[in-house]
Structures are given as C-alpha cells and as structure tokens.
C-alpha cells in the first residue's frame, strides 16, 4: 500500500506557497510550532489554494520520519502539531465527539489557533 503513493508522510501545499519558502515537490521540509515538529516531504500541487497546507493519513511514526533539525529527535506525525487541550465540552462524555483522551485525535479536530512554521530543511536526512 505504501508504494501506491509517496511511501511516507507528506504535507500538501500550493505552488505559490512552495515558491515562497523555496520548496520543490518531494523536498524534505519541517513544520513546527510550540507543540512539536513534523519532518516530512512536500507535495506541491495546484489542488491546494495558496495559504493552506494539508496533512492527512499520517503514516506510522516509525517509518520515514528522520531526525528533525528543530528538536534533534525523530520528527513526529500530524498529531505533534495539533495537541489537544481539554475544554469543558470534552468532559460531558457519552458521545463520540464529546470525549477526551490524552492527545486524542478525535472528531473535534484542531482545538485552537496555533501559528505553525514550515520551512525547507537540509536535504541530507538521518534516521
């Protein structure tokens, strides 16, 4: 299955955004904010509108996640950027969308605004 696309985690971005940070298709990039860091490759596609990036189907964190330049650790998955902070509705319980677990990736999605930086990184990656 992993051979049927790019074989590892990717972030989709528009050609305009990619130009702005000097990234070409399949370059190694890093996305980071105060929650964590993702080291992965870029997919540059005109399907993406400028100003939006997109990461989906985060693969196993133990595949193709090189050491990040920001932390020196293996750069994580999409969940590393979207840490969940408890809000009262999570405590209601009893419904799928109103449940809480630590760093839980649930139907409520991202919980708050967060500024994330994406930049091109050294193309020499270590695992």
């Amino acid at each position, binding site marked *: 299955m992993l051979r*049927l696309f790019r074989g590892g985690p990717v972030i989709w971005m528009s050609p305009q955004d990619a130009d702005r940070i000097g990234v070409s298709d399949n370059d190694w990039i890093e996305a980071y904010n105060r929650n964590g860091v993702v080291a992965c490759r870029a*997919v*540059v*596609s*005109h399907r993406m509108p400028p100003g939006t990036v997109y990461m989906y189907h985060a693969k196993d964190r133990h595949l193709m996640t*090189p050491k990040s330049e920001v932390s020196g650790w293996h750069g994580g998955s999409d969940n590393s950027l979207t840490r969940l902070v408890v809000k009262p509705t999570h405590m209601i319980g009893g419904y799928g969308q109103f449940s809480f677990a630590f760093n839980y990736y649930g139907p409520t999605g991202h919980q708050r605004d967060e500024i994330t930086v994406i930049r091109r990184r050294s193309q020499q990656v270590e695992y």
Partner: protein
Amino acid sequence: MRVKAQVAMVMNLDKCIGCHTCTVTCKQTWTNRPGTEYVYFNNVETKPGVGYPRRYEDQEQWKGGWALDRKGRLQLRSGSRLRRLLSIFYNPDLPTIDDYGDPWTYDYQVLINAPAGTPNPSAHSISALTGQDMHMNWGSNWDDDLAGGPAHAAGDPDLAGLEDQVKLAFEQVFMFYLPRICEHCLNPSCVASCPSGAMYKREEDGIVLVDQDRCRGWRFCVSGCPYKKVYFNHRTGKAEKCTLCFRRIEAGQPTICSETCVGRLRYLGLFLYDADAVLPAAATRDPQQLYRAQLSVFLDPDDPAVADAAARQGIPADWIAAARRSPVYALAVRHQVALPLHPEYRTLPMVWYIPPLSPVADVVHATGYDQADPDRVFAAIDALRIPVEYLANLFTAGDADTVRAVLRKLAAVRAMMRAAQLGLDPGGDLPASVGASESDLEDLYRLLAIAKYDDRYVIPPAHTEDAGRLMAQHEQLFCSLETDGGPGMGGAGPPAASVESFHPDGQPADTHLFRGDDGRVHFNLLGWDGHGTTPHLFPDGGTS
C-alpha cells in the same frame, strides 16, 4: 462471417473513487512474488497525469501499437519485422525501472533490533530490488490526486494541444481516476510483436496470455503493447501480464479486480464479433473513425442469423444466451455510452470506459430540464471542468462530438430520473434529444445505478467438454504463477488441489481453501466467491 466470443469489461469512471482496492487485491493475488515487485497488472492512475509507466501513452517515444504504412496497411509502430530482428539484442523502446518506479520497502530490522529505550526508532526506504538505501523520487502512483501537479501532470500526453484551454491552476483544477488492466485487444500488438510465438489470444474467450514455456524473454511484447501492460519478470526472465483471472472467468466468476471493486464500477460480459472484420476495422484510415469501425465489428446476439452462425461455429447455446444479457454489449454497443481507451493505437481494446460526468452533476441538478429549452441541461456539458477535448484525446482519438453525445445521454438519464423522483414531467422530447427512447434511458438507469452482482457480471462458465484442454492449459501454460512462490498472499501458491477441484460447469467447491505445507488450512483470494469461510483473512473475534 466468423463468429467469435470475447470476454470484455466496462468501467464507469463516474464511480471510481481512486481507492486502489482493485490494485491491492490484484497485486496480492497475482504479483506478490519476487521478480514482480514493480508489476501492477491492475493500476489506478490520476488523470491528468503521466501514468504508469511514466508517459506510456506517448507512442512517439515507446513505439507501441499499430500504425498504417504509406499504402494504408497495418504495421507495428516499432517497424518492420527486419528492424525488430536487427534490434533483437538491443531493444531501444523499453521502459526502464525508473519509468515504472523502483519499488521500495523499509529497513524494518532497525525497528526490530532497536535496543530497549531507543526513543522512536524510524525505518527508512530501501530498494526492494537491491536492498540498498534509496531516496524515493518516483513510483507507480507518484502523481496520485495531482500530487506534484505543476511538475508532473503537465507531462500528460493527453494534454497535448490543450495548452491554451487547460491551466493547471487551483480555480480550474480537475481530475478523475483511470483504472487500467490489460485491454485483451481484438488486434493485439503484443502478440504480433513476439518473436517466439509465445503470446496468444485464446480461441474461446479472447483472453490474451503468455505461454511461459515458449517465452524467451525478448521483451518485444513489452515495447509492442501501447498500454504497457505486459511486464518482464526479472526473476524468471519471462513476460507476464494480466490474465483476466481466467480461472475465475472459466468458473463463471468475475475477475478479482471486479469482485473487490468498492464503487461497483466494473461490468463483465461477452461480445460476439466477426473475426474477419477485425483487421479491416483496425486499418480504418481516419483515427477518429476507429471507434465507429470498432463498433461495426460486433454482432448483434439478438439477430437470429448471428445466433445461427455462432451455433454452427461451435459457440455453445448458453454463451449466446449470455451474450444477449451482456451488460458490456448493452453499454458499449446498444446504448453507446462506453468508449475504448485510445482507439488510435489500432489494437481494438476490449476494456471500455464510461467517461466521467460527475463535476457537472450539480450544475445539471441546479438547472434541471426545461422542456421549452432542452439545451439548458446540456449547456453545462461544455462548461464541464474536465474539458470534453481532454476526454476525447483519451477515448476517441480527439473526436469531441462523440464524447459530447455520451455525456448528454448520461445527463439525460439523470434529468429523467430526477423528474421521476420529484413527480415532474420530464418532457417527451428529452429521450429523443439524445437519440434514445424512454425505455433506453430506463435501461441505462438500471445498468448504471442499480445493477446487482448478477447484472454486472454475466459470465458463462467454460464447458465441461473443454475442461480437459483447459486444465492442460492451466498446468502447462499457467503464466509462471505456480512457480517461484506462486500467486496469492505470498505463500506457496494455489495448490494442485485447486486445479483438481476445478469445476468449469458449476460452482467450485471451496477452491479458495487449501492445505499448506504447515498442515493448516489456508485461504486464497483467487478462488473466493465472497462466500464461505476465510481462515486467517480476518483476525479472530474477541480481541481488539
């Protein structure tokens, strides 16, 4: 008139969601072996895109299929027999592994051998062919969903001539999926290219196969096939290709890709055709007339004269009956909504496609059908996000009017059924405006929207009197798939038992089960009809 039967497929592109389930089950069944790591008998491409292998549709580069010589005679595009003979030790028109994509796997040992306490060990890509570290930069589906669009989609040969119309920009983005298997052509250029006579088209059902005993690995079939659907097994040194799951077809079952298709977009059935008409049709001078020429080859199974001729020439009565019920004949010939892929290659391909209408659906719904102005429904078709000319480059050698007629008919089905749902009057002119009757549109609705398993797959089982010959074929010509690991789940392959218990005239008895070398009962997708037990396929219940 020489009547022959052909098993053919239609795929409704409106329904393809690009899930690759067909690819995965096909790979698991047939090419999950050393030597075929890079091979996909079935693959799904994103269009616009360069496909697999890269730019295979560019016959200026690959020289696949047929062309007409100066006197209007059919000749392989790769040139004369002499030219092929002279280049037999060096064939310049072969795709390299970089065109297919070097198949990768991962260095899983890093994970398994990581000492306790290692924080998040991570495995990286290695080549499945050499085991060396590799940087992934191309694969069989690298441009999925327009990934890398500006860099890759622009190289799609079908976009040639549309540069002014098609801008690869967010506001005008369009895409659809194109699942592909071997076309099992009526005029196969792979068979004609083979210097060893190892490739053949089966008499009884038209499936194109490679005789593994006679194949000498010259690879002219690989370059001769314009769809690049013959592959070279680098372990056995022989060619392999999609077999249309012939053992399942013989038992009256659909192919694995059809059986497992989530969108239920595939149809399988019979064509009756006049074998004497094939070569004149393929030699039609104007490429845009090739689609019509191809239709003229087919015979109407409801015509008593055709049925008589077929019966005289040894086609069994139940096959003729199946040809009458064939969904493939209905979609391609009776309603003419399915089109062949790249008829300009002159191979008369037998996998047909219903062009996609989806992106226009909302416009059609919003507009509705207005009896006073019948063109209002159809005005949207020319505003389609997928340019009609692009579809025409794929399916009709550039004849946009034929594609437009198909899309209008599909839109008319929707308009009529929408009116029926809402209790509106669709207007008596609607069917006639697309050259159909009301019952035609109802039949199309039945076929396209609600067709059940038995309506989508009308496959007459092979005959008992042929069983001996077929089984000999299985044993002798079994496409190398019983050797070297064999097909199916990477195991020991389908055992001799599944050949012994093969019942061409009836339902096979548990042919999907076999006893492995370890003494346990195993399960093989190859013989599975969707019923019965499936040991080891799903985890046992109780734990989660």
